[in-house]
């Protein structure tokens, strides 16, 4: 598979504060990367930097295959979305003054994912179609944030704790959907999650961050097979 994303020596943060201290990684088309690490190690900052929502102090972010590759580093967020970045932020940030259907249609772009296919995956959203963002429960907002990123028909999906607040039956459905769309549609994904086992099962690659640097890089299967290594990287005492 061809490389879709390449990050070189990325330094970024908020204002003058530099959180990411030189992060480099690459991700192939159709692959899912589990981005792990303890609290405050830079996971969300990395996701937000790819989406263009932080201050980049140095390094490069390349997205695309072969001659179609673009350097995202200096692009504003909306141009990154147009280049193929779909972002599900940690705090959802749905458009609260729009209805569920408007949230989806406002950003939809041509491709396999449409508001209809989102409703198929999350029937609850179909029932809430005409409700405003303010009238949704926390879990419904989470479904909408995921659906809104999908209808952009991105090439790279950034999911920051997508399972939080979702009922177990919906978590199953969403994990199945992510595994299917990366496999069948060649979409790549980076997932930050507090339940490492749940996402390692659908990921191929892993990166563990600590204090803004990459402290481990490898296959998901390797970390799944070595729970002690995973625990020590995440600072979990057994």
């Amino acid at each position: 598979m061809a490389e879709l994303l390449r990050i070189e020596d990325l330094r970024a943060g908020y204002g003058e504060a530099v959180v990411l201290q030189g992060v480099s990684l690459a991700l192939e088309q159709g692959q899912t990367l589990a981005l792990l690490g303890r609290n405050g190690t830079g996971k969300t900052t990395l996701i937000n930097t790819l989406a263009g929502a932080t201050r980049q102090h140095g390094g490069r972010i390349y997205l695309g295959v072969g001659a179609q590759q673009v350097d995202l580093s200096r692009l504003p967020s909306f141009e990154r979305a147009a280049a193929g970045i779909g972002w599900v932020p940690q705090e959802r940030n749905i458009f609260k003054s729009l209805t569920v259907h408007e949230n989806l249609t406002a950003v939809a772009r041509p491709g396999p994912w449409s508001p209809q296919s989102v409703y198929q995956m999350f029937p609850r959203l179909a029932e809430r179609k005409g409700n405003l963002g303010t009238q949704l429960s926390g879990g419904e907002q989470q479904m909408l944030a995921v659906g809104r990123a999908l209808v952009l028909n991105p090439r790279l999906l950034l999911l920051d704790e997508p399972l939080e607040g979702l009922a177990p039956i919906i978590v199953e459905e969403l994990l199945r959907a992510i595994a299917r769309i990366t496999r069948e549609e060649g979409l790549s994904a980076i997932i930050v999650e507090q339940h490492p086992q749940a996402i390692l099962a659908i990921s191929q690659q892993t990166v563990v961050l600590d204090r803004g640097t990459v402290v481990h890089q490898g296959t998901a299967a390797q970390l799944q097979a070595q729970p002690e290594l995973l625990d020590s990287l995440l600072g979990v005492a057994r």
Partner: protein
Amino acid sequence: MSEREAQTTVLHAQQLVKRFGGITATDHVTLELKKGARHALIGPNGAGKTTLINLLTGVLPPTEGRIVLDGQDITDLPPHLRVQRGMVRTFQINQLFDSLSPLQTLALTVSRQQGLGARWWQKLGRNAQVMARCEQLLERFHLSEVMNQPTRVLPYGKRRLLEIAIALSCEPRVLLLDEPVAGVPAGEREELLQTVAALPADVSVLLIEHDMDLVFSFAKYMTVLVNGAVLTEGEPEAIANDERVKAVYLGHGTEATLEDGHG
């Protein structure tokens, strides 16, 4: 009489109804929280769990029904007076003072709890008893390292921990937790809920949470809410094996998610 029936009811929701225009978010819910309960409230997204907590705490007025705390009708009591009677909650979406540090935040709530709220203008650290309690809470919730940073710059997980620390600083007798560990790292979740479970035996806890490993390790009794109404309630084992609960909420465990892995 069953063991549960023999226990004292601390908080009693009676036939609560909440309508928002044409939507019935809470549909004749009756729920009894027993003294010392470790009670979980589960249900699909949009079932009305948070709305029920909002009704119990007075954030929303019910359309119909009554709420009784310690035998007294509190249906019309404003939220802050419910807190004074020992009913405390956490929020699903953090409700924190962004410009204050964790230490300043806890100093405020601890001072209030110790009857020193009117002395808010005094310099931080003036009262040794307040500071001792703050230190204890900061340490217990792994916030000591960041206690002087403005809350707005803290990672999400730390803000969650602060939310719970605030609730416990109010020395609750009835504690309502709305997805308390969402966003908290895996290693700290269990410890956090153990802290809650280890509260004095007479503190009653109602927990909303989607992490089923934690729910089943914590709860002694469960209520399942679907479409605003109580679908069923009972002990965890009975709930886990209830086909209706599996169909609408629990699903069929992790096997289904694992079969697609590494495809």
